[in-house]
Structures are given as C-alpha cells and as structure tokens.
C-alpha cells in the first residue's frame, strides 16, 4: 500500500489506539513518535514507539489536548505527519488546520470538512440538502397550538414535544395520536416555562427503541468515496458503547445498500476525505426498517476493528495511504462482508456500583489468545490506570463464520481475560453476552440502561473452592517469601469476602 511521503508519524494519542497505529507503521516501515503526559511515561504506547516526546502534566488539557505542544513535538522530532487517533484533538478543526499550516500531513479529513460536520445544526441542514434522511423535527416560529399541532402532523406519530431550551427529559411529552396534542402541548409549555423560563417547544418524530447503526465511509483526494458496510452499536450505556458487532442482524440487503448510499452522500456533501463514520438511528428491522442520520464522526472509530475483520481491510493502513495522497486501496465493488465480528470494550469500571470508573494499578493482566481473537490494548501488568483519561483498557475483537460462533468465541475469550487490581466490566460482559436479548440480537439503545443493573446483579456468583485454594497458597507463598507483609492478617484470612462479582 503506497504511503508515499510519510516517513515519520507522530501519534497524538495514548492507550490502545496509539499502540495499534504504531503496529501498523511497523508494517509500513514508517518511524513512529509517541507523545506522553506525566502519567504515561511508562505506558505501553510510549515503550512501543521509536521516539517519544513528553508533553506536560497528566490532565489532558496540559498534554494530549494542547494542540500547540503536540505540533511543537511533531516539528521537534522531525515528523512529517500526525495521526490524531480518536478523542482528544481528533475532531478539532483548529488542530487539523494547525497541522496543515505547519506543513504536517494530518491523517484525517481536511479542517474544512471537520468544521462543516462540527456544527450539529449546520450538519443537519447539509444532510437534508443532500437527501440524507434525518429525524423529522422543527421548532416553528409560530408557537400557537394550531401551528405546533400542524408541525406534529408533519413530523409524524408518535411525536415527541420537548422544550427548545431543555434537556434531561424535563417537559418531554409523547403524542401518539392527533387528539392528544392539545393537552400535551399545554403541559409541556407549563413545564418548560417553570424549568427553563422559556416555553418555546420543539417537536420531532419519536423513534421508539431504536438501534444505533453506523456506516464506515472512506474517501480519497481523487474523488473516490466508498462505504464499508455497517456496525451495530446499540449495546451502549449512557451513550457509551460497550459491544459493537457487524453485520447488524436487523438490516436487510436493501436497507444496508440504502444506508451505504446515504453515508456516501453525507461524505460527499462535506467534501470528506479519509475514514469517517455516519451514525444512524434504525427504526424497526428487515425490509420495513427506517434510518435517520444522527451525526458524522470525522475520525477513526474505537470500533473500527469490527469492520476490519468482516470486510478484510486495514483501515489504518488505508488512512496513511490516503493521507499521503494515494487513491483508495479498494473499490466499492471489491468490498464485501464475510462472517461476523464482535467487539467487547473492556472498561475499568465497577458495574455493581453503578459502573463507577476505577483507577489504580493493574496487579495482573493477561489477554486471551487464539484463532479469530484480536486484542487491542494500551495496558499491561504494572500499568496504573489514571483518573485523567478514559477508563477503556482494551478491546477484545473476535471473528467467526457466524454470529453465534462469534458470540461463543467472545465468551470463551472473556473467560480467559484476567485483569486484577481494578474492577472491570469483564464479568458483566460475560453475563451480557449470555442475555436472552443479546443471544436473539434484539438490543436497542435503551437496553443497557434498562437492564444493566439486573445484569450486574446476575454476575455475582459463589466463590469456587478452587479460587479459595489458590488464594490460600498465594498467601502461604507470600508468607514464606516476604513474611513482613502478612503481619496484619488475622487467623482466618477469609473473614471479609469482597464478592465474586462483576
């Protein structure tokens, strides 16, 4: 794959995505420059890189979010290109622009595309103009009952009335038939006025129990735009994705094709370049399913490996080639889906305590291995999970010929994935992948918010005798080798049981 001019790449990120990009560069004989904060001096991404530049203190705004420092690091290390990864500066148009100004190749879309997709209102208007379906909605200038009722009729039923100034569900009313509109409008107006001091109302189509389905797109600087099919990402908690898979079992070939074309139209509408993702809400399933554009993520996604496994491409290789000016390494006709991939995001969080993020040292870490198993990670034994960054430690990605085989492979791999020292969502994930709704592929975006606590509770199990025996031996060995550390132990070491749980 031609990666032309790029000889030395600075990766303006940390964790698993930095490691993954460094690995891609090794295959392409591109030198790598890592950047790091005070908290990450010994992090795997820093150790893996050919060069490393210290940015600043642990808080991201003093390190990974400081565009000036990152660009200075790139220039000082002789890098000719910058890969922003995801998060941090990846979708900041000013950063892409600053790279362009400094003569650095930005591995992503041009700053102008980022600006156009960065404004939610502007992006929605552009999509409507490009013929991409969006959730019907409007805030009529005439806020009379008659005008709002007419707007409700236009957006369709069931409709949702919500305060234009609002948020958090306050003042939101569902209208299922035209007859319910007048009462609902009055109630919404009262609550909006009381809570926000502004009674302006917005009406939109209510998408009930939608799925989150997104389309990977890729564009080069030679006018080629392709889509790489979908990822199903409905298993999310408070908009934080937990499990992604592809193909989406709810898509018919016709709807898949239509979504792919819509995503290509969206990319063309903003003169997009490099890898991007169009997120859609999907209503219903099969031939009758409808989809609505949500937003475009103008970067590599966390869940890009799912597409890589199913479509058989390397998106980071392609990003580097396209950024260097090469044409896309694939055509639409050459792309197809094969088998099924599932990604499980491994978070440092405690599902039993409301998914509260966990920080601290990882005392023991071992990844699963085997055919069809891929782990992208940014930690190892001895890593300290910092409070300053995202709690995602790793991604487990499995591929198999069918969804059920992939699910079984993911379960087997999760049972081999050992992380000690901080709580993770692995035990929770094992329950989730066995949940009847997951097995049946009937997950909507509200599923985890509704069922998460019950799944967390179900993952508490009795402690097996084998585990107790191993702990006893561990303590005995510790007592003989370092007797000093056991002074505080009482006669019965198992007095307090922290719990066998997720």
């Amino acid at each position, binding site marked *: 794959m031609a990666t032309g001019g790029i000889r030395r790449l600075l990766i303006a990120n940390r964790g698993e995505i930095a490691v993954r990009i460094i690995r891609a560069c090794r295959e392409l004989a591109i030198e790598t420059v890592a950047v790091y904060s005070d908290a990450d001096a010994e992090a795997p991404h820093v150790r893996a890189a050919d060069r490393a530049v210290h940015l600043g203190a642990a808080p991201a705004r003093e390190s990974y979010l400081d565009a000036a420092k990152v660009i200075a690091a790139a220039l000082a290390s002789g890098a000719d290109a910058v890969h922003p990864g995801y998060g941090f500066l990846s979708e900041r148009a000013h950063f892409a622009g600053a790279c362009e100004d400094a003569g650095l190749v930005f591995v992503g879309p041009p700053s102008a595309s980022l600006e156009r997709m960065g404004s939610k209102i502007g992006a929605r208007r552009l999509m409507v103009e490009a013929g991409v379906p969006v959730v019907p909605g409007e805030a009529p200038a005439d806020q009379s009952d008659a005008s709002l009722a007419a707007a409700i009729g236009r957006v369709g039923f069931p409709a949702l009335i919500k305060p234009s100034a609002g948020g958090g569900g306050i003042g939101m009313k569902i209208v299922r038939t035209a007859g319910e509109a007048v009462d609902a409008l009055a109630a919404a107006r009262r609550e909006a006025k009381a809570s926000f001091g502004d009674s302006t109302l917005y009406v939109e189509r209510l998408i009930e129990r939608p799925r989150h389905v997104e389309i990977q797109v890729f564009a080069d600087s030679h006018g080629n735009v392709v889509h790489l099919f979908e990822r199903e990402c409905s298993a999310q908690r408070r908009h934080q994705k937990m499990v992604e898979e592809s193909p989406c079992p709810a898509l018919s070939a016709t709807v898949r094709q239509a979504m792919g074309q819509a995503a290509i139209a969206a990319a063309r509408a903003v003169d997009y370049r490099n890898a991007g993702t169009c997120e859609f809400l999907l209503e219903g399933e099969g031939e009758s399913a409808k989809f609505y554009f949500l937003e475009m993520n103008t970067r590599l996604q966390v869940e890009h490996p799912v597409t890589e496994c199913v479509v058989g491409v390397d998106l980071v290789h392609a990003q580097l080639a396209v950024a260097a000016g090469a044409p896309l390494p694939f055509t639409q006709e050459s792309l197809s889906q094969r088998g099924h991939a599932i990604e499980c995001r491994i978070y440092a969080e405690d599902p039993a305590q409301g998914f509260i993020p966990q920080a601290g040292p990882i005392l023991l870490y*071992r990844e699963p291995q085997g055919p069809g198993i891929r782990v992208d990670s940014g930690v190892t034994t001895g890593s300290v999970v910092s*409070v300053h960054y995202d*709690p995602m430690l790793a991604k487990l990605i499995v591929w198999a010929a069918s969804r059920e085989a992939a699910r079984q492979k993911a379960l087997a791999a999760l049972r081999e994935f050992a992380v*000690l020292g901080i709580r993770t969502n692995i035990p929770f994930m094992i329950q989730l992948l066995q949940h009847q709704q997951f097995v049946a592929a009937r997950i909507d975006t509200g599923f985890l918010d509704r069922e998460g606590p019950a799944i967390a509770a179900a993952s508490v199990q009795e402690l097996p005798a*084998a585990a107790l*025996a*191993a702990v006893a031996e561990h303590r005995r060995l510790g007592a003989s080798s370092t007797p000093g550390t056991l002074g505080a132990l009482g006669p019965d070491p198992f007095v307090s*049981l*922290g*719990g066998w749980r997720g």
Partner: protein
Amino acid sequence: MVGVAEPTVTSLGAGWYLVDDGERRWRVAVAGEGDMQWVFLEGQVATLETPRPGRRRAQSTEAGVMSPMPATVVAIHVAPGQSIAEGETLVVLEAMKMELPIRAPRAGVVKTVACAKGDLVQPGVNLVEFE
C-alpha cells in the same frame, strides 16, 4: 468439603496457580499482598480482604459523603444550613470523562461543605458533612 479431597495447588509463576481438585483442573490468578487479594477464575473476579481494626473505608457514612476515587469537583448543589432529601445530589464530581453525582445517603441538614468547585478531591475525605 466433606468427602472431597483437599485440592492440590501448583504455583505456575507470575501469580498463576493450577488447582486440581482430583477431578478437574482450574487455572487461577491471584494478585495482591498484605490484607487484600484479588482472585480470577474463568472470567470471574473477587477480592478477599482481612478487615483491619480502625481502617477507614472510602465511602459515605451517616456523617458525611466522600468521593469514591480521586476526582475533580465540577458542581456543588448545596450550602451549609440547607435541608436535603435522601438521594438528593449534593456534589457532582468528574473523573475519567464521567460525571459522578454524589447523593445524600439520608435526609438532613448540611453542616459544612468541605470542597470547592475545581478541587481535586481524594477518597476518604468528607466532601459534605451533615448536622
């Protein structure tokens, strides 16, 4: 474990143990020294603690609320003397890109607010104390 043979445990190094109960074998990982161990078996994880007299737990009590982890205070919703209901949000913290609302464990009256917006707070220290 009446009637069951005592399992044999072989250390495999690096915290791993092979436990053989005479029938099946299990690979178990254990980590942690002193009075708390973490143990892993087939995807399940537990902590086993020996309680120490007088050790402070980093959690909220009847007398006040604490942060469960190092975090930054992003909002304070109460003031001294204010009456609060059980479950009411007192303080909002942020850690690891997540907002953590700290809620009242019981109804009562705020005595002191021991933190300010922007503070980096540690676990084990009261953020808000009750009368």
